[in-house]
């Protein structure tokens, strides 16, 4: 049944690569933003909060189109990055990672933000009296205590990145071996006669990967939980 063709393997590997890179690159930004939104009051905070959540409510095609006109070859940001850093997004797997990261970003930020908001700040005061400066307080108290939220955010972002379709196909198209993820491959197979078997195989793979991610997340979250309350 699960006799995958080389093309299907390529799509699976590419999907995993894109989702992992998207999540990993989004993580530091996500933590910083979650902390900012949880702890700081500044002008334009509501706007920033809204902006982060935009990909969640916009049609994915719209997000993809906006990425295309800003990060595409002729887009202002895309042209700048290509000319100065040699980073090209359009029709590359890096572009797919960018769109997946953008789409997963709100799902990453929200749980981390809620976890940071739930932390008893008196513990951070206690750390300060014990000699920890603000960075160390963050690294040794805030971040470890926010770990369950961090894990939840990572899983949601990874899952979103793995399944992202609309924004990615709009931004970087559906090129086998470069931007064709599992989702895009399934879509392609359903468009051609006799592609049902291949589509079905990839569907099973997608289910397996998603389930595995959930199980790992559950296990990690439970471990983090017992670290707080158990022995």
């Amino acid at each position: 049944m699960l006799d995958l063709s080389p093309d299907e393997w390529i799509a699976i590997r590419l999907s995993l690569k894109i989702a992992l890179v998207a999540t990993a690159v989004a993580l530091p930004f996500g933590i910083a933003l979650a902390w900012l939104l949880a702890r700081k009051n500044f002008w334009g905070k509501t706007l920033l909060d809204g902006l982060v959540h935009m990909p969640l409510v916009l049609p994915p095609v719209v997000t993809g189109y906006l990425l295309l006109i800003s990060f595409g070859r002729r887009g202002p940001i895309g042209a700048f990055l290509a000319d100065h850093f040699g980073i090209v997004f359009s029709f590359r797997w890096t572009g797919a990672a960018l769109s997946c990261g953008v789409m997963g970003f709100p799902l990453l930020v929200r749980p981390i933000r809620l976890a940071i908001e739930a932390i008893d700040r008196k513990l951070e005061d206690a750390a300060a009296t014990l000699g920890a400066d603000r960075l160390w307080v963050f690294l040794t108290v805030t971040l470890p205590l926010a770990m369950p939220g961090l894990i939840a955010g990572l899983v949601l972002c990874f899952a979103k990145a793995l399944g992202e379709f609309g924004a990615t196909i709009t931004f970087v198209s559906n090129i086998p071996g470069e931007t064709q993820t599992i989702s895009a491959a399934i879509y392609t197979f359903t468009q051609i006669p006799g592609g049902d078997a291949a589509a079905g195989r990839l569907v099973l793979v997608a289910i397996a990967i998603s389930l595995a991610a959930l199980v790992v997340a559950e296990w990690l979250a439970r471990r983090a939980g017992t670290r707080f309350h158990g022995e």
Partner: protein
Amino acid sequence: MLALDVEKRLGEFSLAARFETAGGVTALFGASGAGKTTLVNMIAGLIAPDRGHVRLNDTMLFDSANRINVPAHCRRIGYVFQEGRLFPHLSVAGNLDYGRRMCGLARDRAEMTRIVDLLDIGHLLDRRPGKLSGGERQRVAFGRALLMRPRLLLLDEPLASLDAARKREILPYLQRLRDEVPMVYVSHHAPELKRIATSVVLLEAGRVVATGGIDVLDAATAELVA
């Protein structure tokens, strides 16, 4: 030792306090709402006074006139909070070692053992704070504050969250700590203070109304009874 002269407005409440301590255990005594915790937080550097100064020995910790405000993490002042505030994600040993790590002090096995024995917490080292009783938690909090080798130890109602039996259990440990480091001990419970304090600062509605020896407590409590 500690000399302070501070003013702070917090909404309706205003605090204006001036006193000096000579070392030993200084009791900060007063009813709840008198501003004891606010005052202690200013000494620790967790809140800044509006005006005034806080000096510890030769170090100016806060001086509004010269714009000095040493941040809390640089003050080397130990703080035992009413609710312990142990780090839930660290073991007891991790909690005890936290201050030493953050202050960049060398590992000192002998000192660790001495404090652990002094407080009888050796059997708790591998546990998480969530699994400790109230009395055990406060003893670990004492140890954590002492092991950062503080120049001054602040204790804010360290026994308030404990029942009478636990208080009796902890008091002997506190008496042992008396010779370790100068302390400022906040409480609204006179009998507890009488057993441990060497001098008293009486606080009422944000003002210092009396300072002196333990006899100040007798006068204050007599007034309360009368």
